[in-house]
């Protein structure tokens, strides 16, 4: 075991994780979630055109590889005269992708709230938008935390694809160290371990969040 290599490669990788992987995942997830809410609401709006657009979007995002989406944005768009830097390219691709998956989760979560809750909001005079914000979404949030956490954890790992468009995240650091040292096994295992620890921390966060949101529900 090459302990020196393990030690010397740890900090570049961890710092790639903390300064690129995690921020990339967080930013993409936040933007993706916003977009997902819009798409989910379009789907359940009852307006045929909006609903069809939303369905089409989800179908395209889920039916094409994330890597291809990433390459279309970073390598493809320049031929149309649109050149986007690696970081924004990655954030755009990841958030568009997350939105496709999260939209379906949010749609299901919103529909899982009993119809009587909408009616209770309406009978005290609330508009649909106000009922959604004050009554429905807080309850839908509780339902959607476990599946959204899944999506987020997948996203954290998928950010490794950004290495292919030159974003200096965790895996790109690993690749550089590995090719320089020719110790592929050690370095890539170490990278895997760091991803795993990140995801363990996130899972703990998920449990805490679920507990918090479960306070008011009978078990």
């Amino acid at each position, binding site marked *: 075991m090459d302990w020196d290599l393990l030690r010397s490669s740890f900090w570049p990788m961890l710092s790639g994780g903390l300064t690129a992987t995690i921020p990339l995942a967080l930013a993409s997830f936040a933007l993706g979630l916003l977009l997902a809410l819009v798409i989910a609401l379009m789907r359940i709006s009852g307006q045929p055109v909006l609903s069809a657009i939303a369905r089409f979007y989800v179908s395209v995002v889920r039916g094409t590889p994330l890597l291809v989406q990433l390459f279309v944005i970073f390598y493809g768009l320049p031929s149309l005269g649109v050149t986007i830097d690696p970081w924004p390219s990655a954030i755009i691709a990841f958030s568009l992708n997350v939105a496709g998956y999260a939209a379906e989760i949010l749609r299901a979560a919103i529909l899982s709230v*009993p119809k009587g*809750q909408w009616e209770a909001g*309406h*009978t*005290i*005079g609330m*508009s649909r938008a*106000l009922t959604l914000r004050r009554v429905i979404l807080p309850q839908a949030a509780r339902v959607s935390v476990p599946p959204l956490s899944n999506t987020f954890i997948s996203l954290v790992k998928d950010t490794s694809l950004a290495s292919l468009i030159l974003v200096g995240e965790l895996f790109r650091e690993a690749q550089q160290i590995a090719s320089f040292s020719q110790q592929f096994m050690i370095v890539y295992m170490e990278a895997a371990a760091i991803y795993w620890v990140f995801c363990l921390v996130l899972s703990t966060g998920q449990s805490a969040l679920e507990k918090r949101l479960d306070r*008011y529900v009978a078990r």
Partner: protein
Amino acid sequence: MSPADPLLRATALQKSFGGNQVLKSIDLSIDSGQVVALVGPSGSGKTTVLRCLNGLETPDGGTVAFRDGPAIDFGPKIPRKDALALRDRSAMVFQTYNLFPHMTVLENVIEGPVQVRKRPRREAIADAERLLARVGLADKRDDHPFNLSGGQQQRVGIVRALALQPDLLLFDEPTSALDPELVGEVLTVIKELAEEKWTMVIVTHELAFAREVADEVVFMDEGVVVEHGHPDQVLRDPHHERTRRFVDRLLNPF
């Protein structure tokens, strides 16, 4: 309309779901301070009438007019917004309470006044506490609904409706989801409201209660009002065979 006019007048209300005509042509007139009990077999359209009055359903035809407005003529293309204006005048108490599970009892009650009516929070809280105390739930203000019994939840449901100070209270089978021993505590509250001259329409299967509290009983069957009148007349000496059969069945179930 003048103050002598009824608080609410509904004429020729019609409503179909799919091919099923639930309301054929319903006329209803409610005076201020009056308690009207809507009774009838299940599927007779009672609940749908209530929901039309509150704007939860949009009738296919007919009119709903409150004294001093709104007065709405439901045509084929009535804008949804207009139907919603009805909600400012009435509030509904649901069979299954439909309290907001993520809010405390107090938050449930002040939600409408604060978010919709834009009343100052402190005022709304003071009113809510007073109302909760009246139904014996002052000590439950910080509990979440799941910690309450069905009877307590329904009393909160009533207080949530009262907090909006509506001109008309609508009760949709308020005790049907309750265990029998909890029915009394909810009926007691409704009876007190009747004594305070709240205007109420109550869909109920509790005929004894209807006879005691209601000023008028409306018997519906298959989407029409079969007969209406003083409770003693409709429930003891009905003019119509259908009413007679319904009352008999409820009084002698076996």
